Each structure stands twice: as C-alpha cells, then as structure tokens.
C-alpha cells in the first residue's frame, strides 16, 4: 500500500492547514503587536509622562452615561488627567466594587457607591475622607448638597462620598384616567386610599392594572418599596433589642397589604417585575398608578420611551401611620483609601458633582437630563424649573422629607429607610425578598414567608445583640 506519498496528494486536507495557519498567524500577530506590553486595549491611547489615569467604576444609568459623554469637556480643562470608565449594571457593579474595595484592590480610583455603603465603609476605614477636599475646593459649596443627602453620606460629621444622583420614592398616577373615572387624588394619599383607587381603576378586560409595584427578589428590588410600606404601617426590621420584627402584627399587616394589593390589582407577572417592567407597562398605558423611585420621571416623561407623556401626576409616597414614607437613595462617588491618584480623582469627582456640571448637562443634553436629588441649587435653575415642572416640587419635597436616621414609627437601632444599614443586609434582605416574592407568586402564604424571613433576620439580629452597635 502506498504510504506517506499518497497522503500528501489527498485533496483538500493537506492544503487547508497551510492557508488556515497563515490566517491564524496574521490574526494573532496584529493584535499582539498592539497589545503586547499593554495590559489591555483599554489602556491604548493613554499615558505619556505626567498624565495620570483615573479609573472610575460606575453604575450604568442614563445620567451616568451622560456624564461619560461629557468627560471630554473635563479632559479639555484638565490636560494632565485621563479618564477611564468601567460601567456595569447595578448588581454587577456593586458586587465588583465591594470585592475590590474590601480586599484592598487597586483597580479603581473612584467608585460609585450609595448611602448604603458610605457610612459602613467609612467606619471600616476603606474610604478617603472627602471633607478636607470639599472644603478646600473653591465654589464647591458642600453645604449646597441637599441636607438629608449630606447627612446620609457623612460619617462622624465628615463627607465620605459626594452625591451625583439622588432619589426618593413617590406615587405616579394617570391624571386622565382619574378624571375619566371621576376620582380625585388627594395631596397626601394613604395606602388605604390607594388600594381603593386601584380597585376602581383596575380592569382585567382591557388589560389595565390598577397599580404597578415591584416584586422581583432582591434587597434593592421588592424590598425597597416594601420596606417603606412596612415603616409606614408601624412595623420595622428590628426593635431596640435587635429582636427581629418581621412577623410582628404591624409588619405582617403591611406585607399582607402589599402582597394582596399586587395579587388583586397588580400587574401581570408581579413576582419578576421591577422598575423596567413597570416603566414599560405604565409607558404603554397599561397601568393606572405606579409607586417607585422619583426617577420614574425619566422613563415616563420621555417621548421615545413613553406614550403617556403629559398625562402623569405625582404625589408623595402613600402613608398610613407616619407623616412621610419616601425612601432615600443616592448614587455617590468615593475614593478608596488604596487609590494612588487621590487628587486627580477628586478633581474629576468635584467636576462631576459641581454646580457648573449641572449647567453643562443642561446645555449639552437638555435640562430634563439633569441628575436630580443632589444639590439644592439645581432646583433653583430657571430652565430646569421649567423643563421639570410636572415633577420638580414633588421630587424636591420627597428628597427633603426622607429621613434616614428616623425611618420608622418607633425607635430602631439602625438607620436606613428602604434598607437596614448593616453589612449583612444585602444577604438577609435578599433572602427575605425571595420569600416575599414567592408569596407574591402565590407559591406560599404571607405567614409562611414571614416565618422563614423572621428566622433569617433573627440570625443576623443575634450577632448584633450585646455588640457595641
């Protein structure tokens, strides 16, 4: 049998490897030339003597995207600084930033955190004290920051992160549908009233849901609005002895109210609904009321996203036993202690959270795009007052009435309105939210869900008893 010689003349196979290998080599060499010696393509175009690179970990929301678009303006006026961004979805960003900062990672010079992390991380010594920087920067005016927000981002009287964006919660409703049905939304509605309205407006035939509420598991998903409902019904997560209160009568009443409201007059698929789903439903005209963040206005008042622009009214978060119940949440920028470019980082941060930045956004992107809920002066800009007229006052009121230090009817050992400001909350809050979500889906009863939740919460509460917290 003819050996090797015959093989080389086999059609196709022998020739293809050559062409294929050449192609592959080319494919390898070209990027290799560019990248060998670099850590990655993101580093291209940077550096040079005297240029500092500041790396920012940021959460990808619309306002942050605007900021990234406007960064060339910053780089123009600060030629020695080069900006790099890592933009991720909220959960990914939070996980990544926490892992990095907690283990002393050095990838980031600026991290976007919130009023949940700031006091805790400041107490751990993970963040740079920003008060000296803020005080030493002319025109920065840290006193201009909304008071409740400034409080929330401080530790021992010093600012440890600066707010870029702040929100509270309120109730959005379809003015036209209310008018048609002959209903009037009071200036300070209660949850009982809201349920009443939902019952009257809900119409399964035409596919109109009375109300849209979050139900997706997650400590920042369903737990955010639910915690505010619990607070205003007189419940809480813990009492002063760190006994978990999740199946106390008040909390049980609150959770039953929320779950039943969703089951009776809520949107389809509530157990996996979050902001996006409700925004779509409301924007398409399939929902009469929506209780969620004050930032709903960005989805509802944007013609490219919503069909009900101009038909939406806004009232404060519904209450029952308390005066106010809106939550408080800010996205803020902080500098990890391990950063090697603190001054450059501050220059960027102060630019991005300054009064001038607001005017820049207004001119370049439109006045409706201003990041809300950070500075009092923003709300005094005439162009903004005009562009944001439908929701300006309700938003400002909500921000000014959200007291993170005293969230509940009765005193509690923790701070935080829609969360409990302890490190364990991400985990226990999510576990509890999974139980609640199962109840919303009808897979379990509220009583059972709360019984399980109580166990989780008590395990955590026990570790705080006796501790000097």
């Amino acid at each position, binding site marked *: 049998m003819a050996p090797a010689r015959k093989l080389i003349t086999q059609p196709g196979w022998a020739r293809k490897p050559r062409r294929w290998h050449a192609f592959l080599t080319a494919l390898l060499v070209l990027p290799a030339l560019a990248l060998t010696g670099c850590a990655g393509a993101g580093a291209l175009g940077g550096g040079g003597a005297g240029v500092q690179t500041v790396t920012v970990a940021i959460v990808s929301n619309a306002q942050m995207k605007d900021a990234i678009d406007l960064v060339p303006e910053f780089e123009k006026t600060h030629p020695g600084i080069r900006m790099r961004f890592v933009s991720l979805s909220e959960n990914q960003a939070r996980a990544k930033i926490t892992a990095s900062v907690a283990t002393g990672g050095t990838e980031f010079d600026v991290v976007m955190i919130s009023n949940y992390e700031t006091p805790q991380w400041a107490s751990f010594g993970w963040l740079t004290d920003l008060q000296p920087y803020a005080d030493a920067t002319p025109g920065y005016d840290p006193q201009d920051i909304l008071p409740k927000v400034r409080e929330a981002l401080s530790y021992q009287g010093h600012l440890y992160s600066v707010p870029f964006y702040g929100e509270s919660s309120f109730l959005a409703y379809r003015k036209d549908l209310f008018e048609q049905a002959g209903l009037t939304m009071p200036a300070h509605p209660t949850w009982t009233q809201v349920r009443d309205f939902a019952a009257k407006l809900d119409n399964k035939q035409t596919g109109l849901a009375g109300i849209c509420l979050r139900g997706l598991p997650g400590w920042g998903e369903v737990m955010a609005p639910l915690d505010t409902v619990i607070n205003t019904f007189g419940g809480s997560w813990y009492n002063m002895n760190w006994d978990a209160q999740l199946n106390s009568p008040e909390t049980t009443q609150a959770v039953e109210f929320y779950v039943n409201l969703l089951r009776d007059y809520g949107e389809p698929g509530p157990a996996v609904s979050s902001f996006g789903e409700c925004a779509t439903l409301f924007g398409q005209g399939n929902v009469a009321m929506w209780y969620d963040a004050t930032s709903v206005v960005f989805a509802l008042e944007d013609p490219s996203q919503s069909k009900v622009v101009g038909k939406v009214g806004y009232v404060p978060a519904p209450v029952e036993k308390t005066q106010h119940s809106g939550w408080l949440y800010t996205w803020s920028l902080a500098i990890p202690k391990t950063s090697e470019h603190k001054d450059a980082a501050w220059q960027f941060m102060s630019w991005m959270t300054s009064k001038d930045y607001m005017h820049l956004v207004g001119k370049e992107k439109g006045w409706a795009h201003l990041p809300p809920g950070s500075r009092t002066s923003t709300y005094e800009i005439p162009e903004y007052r005009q562009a944001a007229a439908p929701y300006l006052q309700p938003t400002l009121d909500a921000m000014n009435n959200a007291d993170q230090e005293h969230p509940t009817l009765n005193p509690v050992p923790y701070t935080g309105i829609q969360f409990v400001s302890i*490190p364990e909350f991400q985990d226990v809050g999510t576990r509890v939210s999974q139980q609640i979500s199962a109840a919303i889906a009808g897979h379990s009863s509220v009583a059972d869900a709360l019984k399980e939740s109580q166990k989780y919460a008590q395990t955590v509460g026990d570790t705080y008893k006796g501790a000097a917290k």
Partner: protein
Amino acid sequence: MTTTIEAATAPKRAAKRPEHGPGSRADGWSRRIPLLPALVFTFIVTQLPFVVTIYYSLQSWNLVRPGSRHFVGLSNYAQVFTDSQFRQVMLNTVVLTVGAVLISVALGLLLALMLNRAFPGRGVVRTMLITPFLITPVAAALLWKTTLLDPTYGLVNFVLSPFGAGKTDWISSFPLTAVMMAIVWQWTPFMMLLILAGLQSQPADVLEAAAVDGASTLGIFREVTIPHLRRFIELGIVLGTIYLINVFDQIYMMTQGGPGIASANLPFYIYQRAFLGFDIGQSAAMGVVVAILTTIVATFALRLIFRTFSGKEEAA
C-alpha cells in the same frame, strides 16, 4: 487494521501497544512528553486556585465585616450540610441538568435526523439551527425573559393567545421550566452538530447492505444507526453535563433564582453567598462540596456507562 468496538471484544486495557516500536523506557517517555505541556499547564492553573479555595473554605471570612477572618476548620462544611436551602438547590441543579441535557440531546437527535437528508436549502437551515449556540448567553437569557416569556409583551403568549392560553406568567409559575427552555434552546445546536456528524459518518455500504437485506427503516435505525451514534451521544452527554451543572447566566438574568429558591441552582446559590453575603469561607466550602460530589458522581457514571472509560476501546 482496527475493528470498531461494536464487535464484542474482550475488554482490553487501552494501554499496551506492543506493535508500535519498542516498549522500552525511552519510548514510554517519548510518549509522555507531548502530554506534559498540557498537563503541567492545567495542573498549575487549576490546582493552585483549587488549593487556595480550600484554604479559604477553612476560614470564616466575611468581606464586609473586616477583622472577622479567622480559622474555623471544617465548620463551614458542617453548615453546608445543615443548610436546608442547599439541599433544595442541589435538587434543582440535578433536575435542571438532567432535564436540559436529555431534552437537548433528544431534540438534537431529531434535528440531526431531519438534516441528514438532502432537501433544498439544507445548508441554510443548518446555519439557522446553529445560531442560538453562538449568541452570548447573557443576551440570550434576557431575550427569553423579555421577548418571549413576558406575560404581557412576550411572543410566546402572543402566539398562544388565539388559543386562549395567552396569559401565563411563565417565569413565575414555571421558573425551572422557563430556565430550562432557554438553556435547551442554546445547547440543542451543539448536540445536533455532534449527532449529525455521527449520522453523516455512517458507512454507506452498511446501510445499503441492511436495506438490501430487507430491513425496515425503523429497523435500520435501531440496529445500525443508534449503535453508531452511541459514541456521539455519550460525548454530548458528558460535555453537556459538565457545562450545564455550572449554568449561571440564565438563572441570573431570568429569575434571580426565584420565586423563593425554586429556580436557584448551585452556582447561583454560591454566587449569592459570595457576592451578596460576601461570605467567602462559606461559598468556598460550598464550591468544594460541589466539586467533590460531581467528581464522585462522574466517576461512577463514566465507568458504568461510557465505553471510553470502561477500557473497551482502542485507537485506530
């Protein structure tokens, strides 16, 4: 010339090959050398993390409670076994993996059979069928959640609504099924390709001989095709299982493990412990437990079921 393993040969250890050169020591080493780079590389890159993971699993370390790190020996492991949720999650993982693998193999078989015959545009159809495997899993999962399975806007409900079944909330009511659908959609092309290759490498003369002998189509399929395909199906099951035990993206994007933990699998559960609870010791211990369990199951499964490992094969 080798014989294929269909012949019931006595089990032979795949080791000794006296006819290939001297069985000397030098030859033994020259056989091993090509293997060494891959072996050494894999060993270093994978075992180092494994050892580090075990090291951390013996500590109690919560990232967001600084100063809490201390050695606790095996207590993390004890906690894993007393965690009632862990058991449920393990069950979910088994159901999901077995279901997804079997369904995608079955579907892949059907599709491969369909593609095995010539018809106009076969290449185009084959291309269409492969595409799901090429899309990034994160995007594909989101596609399923929003475009297909959404109760109000989803296409599945839209298509079913003329039949009156158009308001099902798939993701809340049937979470594990919904996740399985998304996974099967992406992995069926992979199985299909493997099996198609098997079908198309059937020796034509054997098939003709059987047909000439008067065997029915079904008979041919059963007696000739299936045995030949067994290898490919086995390879598909092995590879599919190894990957699907670790499936993560679909659960993360579609259901977040909910409602409750109805659709949480082991990787997702571990992820939550590591990145929500930031309990590195606990999640590391869970990972090690999963690795050990998988290894045990795999050892038995591979030896009992697959010829590759029962030593019944030889190289050409």
